[in-house]
């Protein structure tokens, strides 16, 4: 299907099914139950899950295939975001020009950064990209305040030119739309105690994600992808055989920069605001974590990793001491206090701690990331069935590591 081999088609179909039915999958608990705290099926988080999925897929094309660890990828996301907001301010509230221009601008910027940084490899490359990203952050935060809005960020105003749009009605706040559909319009389906939200913005982002995922499969399976893998396994040997590797790595860098730009453009389309923090080095680190957590070099891994981290950031950070107390209120006083005291450091502001522990566990016990965990479980079932070890034969998700 679409020029894919069978196992890849199956994977693509699974991803399509997951994204289409995400509003159901992410809202497993009835609205008024105690567990509703863990529901993730609200528009903002669903949008973030797929957008950061795109970001991680793109990062994986560079890191997973060539092994070049860019530590400044958030800069491309940020540059894309700023470009997107400017399109919304100058051209039209329609999100399409914003998304397209984000990709183009991020691509151009990554060409510049990549052209310079790729003169080195290994840790030097990482440091160079980190330096570029921090430079972009510092510029956006202060020096370029007239363009970026500095600390308070950039957002559409009523007084913006928007040359392609008709004038807004008096008192209407400018909101991004796609031919009249606003990004935060939702259709809510009430089934018993459950509320499932189908959000316009989410499905736009999801379509982009499926397309980005398809493209990444094609790249992984192409001769170009093979060449990138060759760079990863032994660049020197590649050079000795007379192949100049830089055009390939630069192309991979620019492609992954454009993915980051797409993610930035979508972030802006969903929530028309861009701030400099988006480019801070911790944001660059986050995408590295996502990719490694999910499984670097695998197709689906980065998406899983992105979902995992964003879920934790948004759900666990919102559990507070009060909620804990209601959970354990059925216990006698002393014991419930003990449980609350034990769990408290890991929730709310402690979500970083929880995530850190889980990350360590994954890296130690599942070096191939969550994908390896999935394979192990699948392998266990298969072993029971036919007794042969075929865990690694699922080619679609085999880590390149």
């Amino acid at each position: 299907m679409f020029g894919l081999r069978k196992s890849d088609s199956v994977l693509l179909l699974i991803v399509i099914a997951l994204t289409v039915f995400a509003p159901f999958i992410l809202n497993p608990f009835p609205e008024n139950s105690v567990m509703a705290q863990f529901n993730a099926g609200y528009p903002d988080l669903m949008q973030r899950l797929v957008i950061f999925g795109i970001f991680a897929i793109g990062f994986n094309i560079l890191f997973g295939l060539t092994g070049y660890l860019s530590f400044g990828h958030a800069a491309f996301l940020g540059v894309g975001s700023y470009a997107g907001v400017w399109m919304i301010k100058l051209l039209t509230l329609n999100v399409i020009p914003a998304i397209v221009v984000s990709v183009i601008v991020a691509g151009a910027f990554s060409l510049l950064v990549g052209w310079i940084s790729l003169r080195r490899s290994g840790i030097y490359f990482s440091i160079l990209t980190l330096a570029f990203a921090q430079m972009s952050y510092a510029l956006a935060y202060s020096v370029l305040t007239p363009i970026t809005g500095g600390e308070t960020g950039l957002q559409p105003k009523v007084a913006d030119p928007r040359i392609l749009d008709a004038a807004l009605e008096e008192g209407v706040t400018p909101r991004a739309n796609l031919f009249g559909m606003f990004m935060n319009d939702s259709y809510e389906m009430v089934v018993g105690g459950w509320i499932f939200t189908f959000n316009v913005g989410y499905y736009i982002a999801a379509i982009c994600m499926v397309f980005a995922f398809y493209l990444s499969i094609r790249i992984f399976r192409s001769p170009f992808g093979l060449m990138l893998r060759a760079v990863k396994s032994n660049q020197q040997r590649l050079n000795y055989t007379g192949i100049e590797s830089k055009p390939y790595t630069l192309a991979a860098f620019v492609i992954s920069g454009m993915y980051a730009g797409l993610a930035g453009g979508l972030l802006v389309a969903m929530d028309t605001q861009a701030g400099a923090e988006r480019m801070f080095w911790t944001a660059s680190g986050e995408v590295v974590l996502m990719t490694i957590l999910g499984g670097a070099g695998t197709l689906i891994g980065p998406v899983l990793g992105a979902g995992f981290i964003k879920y934790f950031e948004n759900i666990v950070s919102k559990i507070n001491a009060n909620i804990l107390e209601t959970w354990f209120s059925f216990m006698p006083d002393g014991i419930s206090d003990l449980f609350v005291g034990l769990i408290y450091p890991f929730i709310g502001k402690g979500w970083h701690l929880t995530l850190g522990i889980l990350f360590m566990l994954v890296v130690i016990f599942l070096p191939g990331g969550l994908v390896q965990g999935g394979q192990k479980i699948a392998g266990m079932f298969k072993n029971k069935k036919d007794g042969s070890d075929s865990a690694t034969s699922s080619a679609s998700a085999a880590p390149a590591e």
Partner: protein
Amino acid sequence: MSIIKPTRRGLLRTSAVAGAGLAMPTIFTGSASAYMNEPTGSSVTLGFNVPQSGPYADEGADELRAYELAVEHLNGGGDGGMMNTFSSKELKGNGILGKKVEYVTGDTQTKADAARASAKSMIEKDGAIMITGGSSSGVAVAVQALCQEAGIIFMAGLTHSNDTTGKDKKANGFRHFFNSYMSGAALAPVLANAYGKDRKAYHLTADYNWGYTTEEAVRESTEAMGWETVNAVKTPLTQTDFSSYIAPVLQSDADVLVLNHYGGNMINSLTNAVQFGLRDKLVNGKNFEIIVPLYSRLMARGAGENVKGIFGSTNWHWSLQDEGSKAFVKSFGEKYGFPPSQAAHTTYCQTLLYADAAERAGTFNPCGIVEALEGFEFDGLGNGKTLYRAEDHQCFKDVLVVKGKENPTSEFDILEVVEVTPVEQVTYDANIPQMGGPEATLGDCNPGA
């Protein structure tokens, strides 16, 4: 290009078609109720969005304490705190409009993106009717814009930049805290009294939005009174060692140094300046002086000994002796064991003001709240007579000019109030250029449905 150039009519048509298509099975969010997140049960949810991690986590923790205290008081628990001294007597301790107050919390991480994500989840998932909190202007401006779009009321926490109720003001956003302009206007006369009208000032300014507006405000008000600005140098926000910026101050003939820094920046720059012996210097026959426009207790504690005798401004201080402040310090102190900071005070006031506005309006509809708060005059919340101005949703009240105490008695007793600048002196026209000029408008209130 005609595809992506929709006319207004075409846009309406497509949206109507799309709307009809999608809405056929049931309905769009919001159209069922009169406004966004209309509370239908026996309780109402407020969203407390504060920095729990990051550089302002201390302020955030104090804000959260104040919010919890305010909710307790609104629901009739505790001693009622400032509800008893508040000039409006609508709040009865039975929640808001008879509904029990519940709350959700989130971590802004002092990042606009994280703050918006957290606020959005409060609105979309938890059904919060009002969002409040934040302890930096970047976050406040970002979340305020989000609330305007979503149709939710935003009650700003600690944000001092002019932009929050200036260039970036929004109809659904309200600020109780004072701003850069007020700091400048309040400080200038006190400085003229203490240091004379013939001074040469040197500014070191944190290189970001709040720094710019503060520098501008202090400059304009001191220059108006006769001071001369010798130089203004921007320092990177991440700077930790300011020696290289202090040395040129010694070479210039300036006799006052203004540090437009906040938080860790201020602690470091002030410490450096004192270590360089600036304060023992005589320039132009006058003692060299240092000024910190915005003080907070948490910052003063960090700078330790160095703040002694240094002037600055603050929104509120726990040593104030009016009935409101005393009641608040008492109930906060009883619950947590130490006096509240100005961040705690402003967030507590904002919660009460919101609750009271809802009572007076008789509805949680954002437009009703906006109407109730605009031009609202009140007293008894610790700052004396206060006005929520209708033009920019900024509170106008007296501003405290403080000075680092020479002989502190405890780790909380670091600042002393030198003068209370009356509100008339810090009031400005809503359209002055510092506030974004006439093109900055509030827009209309958005009920979100």
